[in-house]
């Protein structure tokens, strides 16, 4: 079943075409990887899928329905969650609070209830805290639950972002270079974490430079070059595609 479908998606920045006439389809339960050389438009694409950029042209369908969201929080409400290549952590909070903030969409709390500390709010908060702790354990941060976010090492923050995104129970989770800046053992852990996410049935769109990781976890790979689709298919087919090899290694002469 198609979870997300893009048709003719394009983004121009003052004449520079960062993404051009892009068609693709992410199927439910897939790990869908987006690869390509630097500047190919991968992060721009993720920004288009989360409302941070507004497309110059093209349309998006989520589960067969045209996606009407405009602001990023509306994309989140529609069920698209994400992490960031350059960390966007709430450094003014603890690790647990970061994840609790990620549950915002599932919290029903009126201003009056918040101001007066309504009894049903206390129950909801306990439940939110429990779920957030569970997610931290799931990404392997059970020892850092009460740590201030700004006291955590880089590798832990990468996983904290994933836990926060999971807290929103997204139907589609976008991971923007989750392995960037990690050491080899951390990359192996990230590989295992993504496999565990996939095993849970979470649909993932992954932007990543680490080819071993991409080949390990992906069901489907989309290759971008200069904002256009260069190739698409199963990981093995894409890896042996001469156009992909050329784009990565440069034209042989």
């Amino acid at each position, binding site marked *: 079943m198609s979870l997300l479908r893009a048709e003719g998606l394009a983004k121009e920045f003052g004449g520079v075409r960062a993404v051009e006439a892009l068609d693709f389809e992410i199927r439910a339960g897939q790990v869908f990887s987006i690869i390509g050389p630097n500047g190919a438009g991968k992060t721009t694409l993720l920004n288009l899928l*989360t*409302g*941070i950029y507004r497309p110059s042209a093209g349309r998006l369908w989520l589960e067969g329905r045209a996606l009407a969201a405009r*602001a*990023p*929080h509306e*994309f*989140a*409400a529609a069920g698209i*969650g*994400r992490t*960031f290549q350059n960390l*966007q*952590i*709430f*450094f*003014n*909070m603890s690790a647990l*609070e970061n994840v*609790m*903030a*990620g549950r*915002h*969409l599932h*919290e029903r*709390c009126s*201003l009056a*209830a*918040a*101001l*007066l*500390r309504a009894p049903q*709010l206390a129950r*909801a*908060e306990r439940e*939110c805290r429990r779920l957030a702790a569970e997610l931290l354990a799931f990404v392997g941060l059970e020892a850092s639950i009460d740590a201030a976010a700004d006291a955590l090492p880089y590798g832990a923050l990468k996983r904290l972002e994933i836990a*926060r*995104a999971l*807290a*929103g129970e997204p139907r589609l989770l976008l991971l923007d270079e989750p392995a960037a800046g990690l050491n080899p053992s951390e990359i192996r852990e990230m590989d295992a974490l993504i496999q565990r996410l996939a095993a849970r049935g979470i649909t993932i769109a992954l932007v990543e430079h680490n080819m071993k990781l991409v080949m390990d976890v992906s069901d489907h790979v989309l290759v971008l070059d200069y904002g256009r689709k260069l190739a698409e298919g199963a990981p093995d087919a894409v890896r042996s595609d001469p156009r992909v090899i050329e784009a990565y290694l440069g034209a042989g002469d």
Partner: protein
Amino acid sequence: MRGLLALAAVVLLAPLALANNYHYEIAILAGLNAIVCVGLNLLIGYAGQISLGHAGFFGIGAYGTAILAARYGWPPLASLAAATAAAALLAWLVGRPILRLRGHYLAMATLGLGIIISIVITTEDRYTGGPDGMSVPPLALAGAALAGERAWYWLVGSLLLATVWLSLNLIDSPVGRALRALHGSEVAAEVAGIDSARHKLLAFVLSAGIAGLAGALTAHYAGFITPGKVTFLHSIELVVMVVFGGMASTFGAVVGATVLTALPQLLTVFKEYEMVVFGGVMMLTMIFMPKGLVPTLAALAGRRR
């Protein structure tokens, strides 16, 4: 909650140290400023949005209730409520466009708003008495006029405790978490589903309403109001109180407001240089304890333990 109990104890026990009406007056003014700062701290400290125009909302509360009560004969409680609502309503109306601005631009827009309110109050002398100010009828509760420093002390003390309680509750709720999140990273807050515009507006309107209420109370308490309290300088004083006490600390706002209200009174010889003292406090705070007094002390205490 321990902090709230400690504050309640301070409010209850402070009269033992207040020897005369003048002391009570300083305590009442400190309490009123603390109420404004607790609200302003929601905006500056928690939501991370700067306002250099809150004296304007304070002025709308003060002059709103003064005009309705003195010129139109409204019962003071009704005029107080209407003036508070007017401050919140104005914040809601102007907040939508100006909260789309960030950083310096937001500061400039709120600064402009504060100055406009100040100019209108100074020039519309038919209603406001202009630069000479106007007198304000006393606040009446259940038919009896609220008079005397002691009665006002208990009123302001209880309102301060209520404001602090509400503020602590809010910060500790999903709404408060959303405010802190958008301070931490607006883009991450948005992709977590937090409507940043709505939450900024909420903090802006709440803080403006609280400033309006404190302004209205100040007018009734003093019995006389001049445009001096509506100036840009007063907006700056309020921001300095919040920053000095400690951003993102409700008790910091209370301590900052109390210290910086009492300090100029204690140093009456420096009266002429009050703004110099404020400027100096701001600079020293930024250099030596950028997190503000209360968070810095709390961190020190935590380290010793």
